[in-house]
């Protein structure tokens, strides 16, 4: 019998060693370069884009049953740049709680879900952020009838907030600083949050001000509610990808920048054909008629032209999704030349 047992041990040991050897080989292969998400997306022929799906203005399903909004348009911009076809996007709705896990697990290629860029997310969470596409700030939505006109009037009240967001933490920080008590009511789902708020479960709902403005319009009686003037945080929203994949991060980054640059140069969806014959070297470089800016990073050389053709420049994206439907002024989201923060590094 002892012989059998020793045989068993020997086998297990051999198997373990074999696995250990195999895994160290894997590490050498996988840990080094590996394949970039860019190659994966190109070979798949479509982009999997993680979005909110419940937020008017950023990403939601409109009356025609199509995803619309600024975030959705940036997903389309990436698809347009890679495939010359903005419909080559698979949208995945993600809750605030799910989003980072979905990205880390490779379920999605890029996360464009009104996600705030913070140092913690950029480093500890293993993400890489692209350029900010919307500079936002956190605000408070209250019922006019409550008579609350400032955050200091919310002492002891219940405040609806979404879990897993920066707003949840900012809210706590702000009220701690003001030293007033409050009760957070933390929802996982945005629709559930605003329906509970409309039913009076909370005296205030807090989120990014753009979101509150958009959501206010879909409440039963929008005129009964107002967004407080106070802004309690900085919320730079933009796309995010996985860490340690700079090829893909660069591609996303420069596709976004190309929309900024196009607006700066005045290139729009409608006048793109006129600019195609331009002699301005800056325009020619952006549109891929001169130099190899696109091919240098593994994209088609005319990626920016494709983005403008299918989706438009930053100003057009903004007006279409946020400016017109919600009458929200550009403010910080103006071009740097107009005193805003939208600024692309040189295309050269």
């Amino acid at each position, binding site marked *: 019998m002892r012989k*059998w047992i020793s*045989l*068993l041990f020997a*086998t*297990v040991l051999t*198997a*373990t060693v074999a*696995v*250990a050897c195999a*895994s160290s080989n*894997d*590490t050498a292969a*996988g*840990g080094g370069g*590996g394949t970039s998400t860019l190659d994966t997306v190109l070979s798949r022929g479509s982009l999997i884009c993680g979005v909110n799906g419940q937020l008017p203005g950023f990403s939601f399903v409109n009356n025609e049953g199509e995803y619309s909004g600024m975030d959705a348009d940036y997903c389309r911009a990436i698809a347009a740049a890679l495939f010359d076809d903005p419909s080559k996007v698979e949208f995945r709705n993600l809750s*605030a*709680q799910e989003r*980072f*896990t979905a990205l*880390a697990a490779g379920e999605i290629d890029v996360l464009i879900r009104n996600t705030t860029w913070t140092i*913690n*997310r950029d480093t*500890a*969470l*293993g993400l890489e952020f692209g350029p900010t596409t919307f500079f936002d700030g956190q605000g408070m939505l209250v019922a006019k009838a*409550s008579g609350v006109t400032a955050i200091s009037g919310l*002492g*002891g*009240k*219940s405040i*609806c907030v979404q*879990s*897993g967001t920066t707003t*949840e*933490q900012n*809210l*706590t*920080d702000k*009220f*701690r600083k003001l030293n007033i008590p*409050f*009760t*957070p*009511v*933390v*929802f*996982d*789902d945005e629709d*559930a*949050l605003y*329906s*509970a708020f409309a*039913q*009076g*479960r909370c*005296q205030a709902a807090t989120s990014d001000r753009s979101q509150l403005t958009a959501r206010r319009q879909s409440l039963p009686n929008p005129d009964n509610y107002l967004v407080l003037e106070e802004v309690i945080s900085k919320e730079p929203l933009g796309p995010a990808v*996985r*860490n*340690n994949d700079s090829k893909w991060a660069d591609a996303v980054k420069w596709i976004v920048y190309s929309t900024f640059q196009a607006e700066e140069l005045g290139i729009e969806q409608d006048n793109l054909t006129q600019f195609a014959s331009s002699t301005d070297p800056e325009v020619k470089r952006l549109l891929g008629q001169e130099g190899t800016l696109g091919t240098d990073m593994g994209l088609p050389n005319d990626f920016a032209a494709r983005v403008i053709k299918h989706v438009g420049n930053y100003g057009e994206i903004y007006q279409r999704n946020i400016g017109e439907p919600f009458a929200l002024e550009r403010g910080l989201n103006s071009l740097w030349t107009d005193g805003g923060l939208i600024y692309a590094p040189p295309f050269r």
Partner: protein
Amino acid sequence: MDEQKIPLWRDDRFIKLAVQVLLVVAVVVVIAILANNVSVNFRRLGLNFGFSFLNNPASFGIGDTAIPYSPTDAFGKALLVGLINTLRVIVVGIILATLLGIVVGVARLSENWLVRQIATVYVEIFRNTPLLLQLFLIYTAGFLQLPPIEQALQLPGSTILSNQGLYLIWPIGSLRTGLSLAVLIGGATLGIVLWQRRLRVMELEGASGNGYQKALIGIGIVSLLALLLGLEWRTPQFENGTVTGGLHLSAEFGALLFGLVLYTAAFIAEAVRAGIQSVSQGQWEASRALGLHSSLAMRLVVFPQALRVMIPPLTSEFLNLAKNSSLAAGIAYSDFFQIAFTINNQTGRVLEVVLLIMITYLTINLLISLGMNWFNQRVQLKER
């Protein structure tokens, strides 16, 4: 006698062992591949494994807190708050679901047509619709329809009811309250012991048990005094739209509790019905022949026997209730699951947090199983 040796591949002992060895190897290989996968991916993302992040400040608020908690406390403390919230729902939920389940289960077999039909409709509706849907309905169409806090209902006993929840009169946590509570618990324990001893003395020795009776009355008076005067009752104060003091049971807690109890009770009712029906008809007839009324026959003869059959399915319903409590996040109740995922979201410690969640729910459920198995052994027939 030169017996020919059996070849190795036909040796029964060898085959049995080889199968086992192969199985062990397969398990080891699978685990090793998984572990390797995790470590490679951790390295690729530049993350490392550890639980020290639980000491960092949480910096998020929690609505329902049974123990004092502030956002400056550590993540570990936040998890503890969540665990207590989960246990609150599970313990109260199991008790209420069992009571309701037994009532409905018995009603399913009632001789009254209307009672039987009502019980059947209840069971079929709650057993055959998704729990999450029921929770949403109970929360938004039930609890949120209560008047807002500004027009809260003021009920007798200083109770305040609004769509923020129920505010009850409750003792504050002071030394005096603690001492009185100790007196109450001690009194109750002593009372039960004395009561049983009194019954035994009366039955076995035919004594009057007067001494025991006096002692019991004395304990009752002391306990009543401790309850009324010892505990420092604090009534909830309602003042321009906010309530301070007292015990706050939030609308979310109420909705989750209601949902879990109604859902689980429907399953328990079926287990109860099956248990009762498994008791042979002869038991009913025998009890009637002894002159027992049908409710007495149920209580004294049939139900104790049915209990033996009911306990194993009942255990799984309790376990289901415990696991279903994690749907709390859907209706904004801060249970362990929700808080753990908030922490995951803030720290990016997916693996650690998921491990913690698994260990916690595993422990809760193993404890429930352990308790129920002990109870099961107690009520089973003793083979003599």
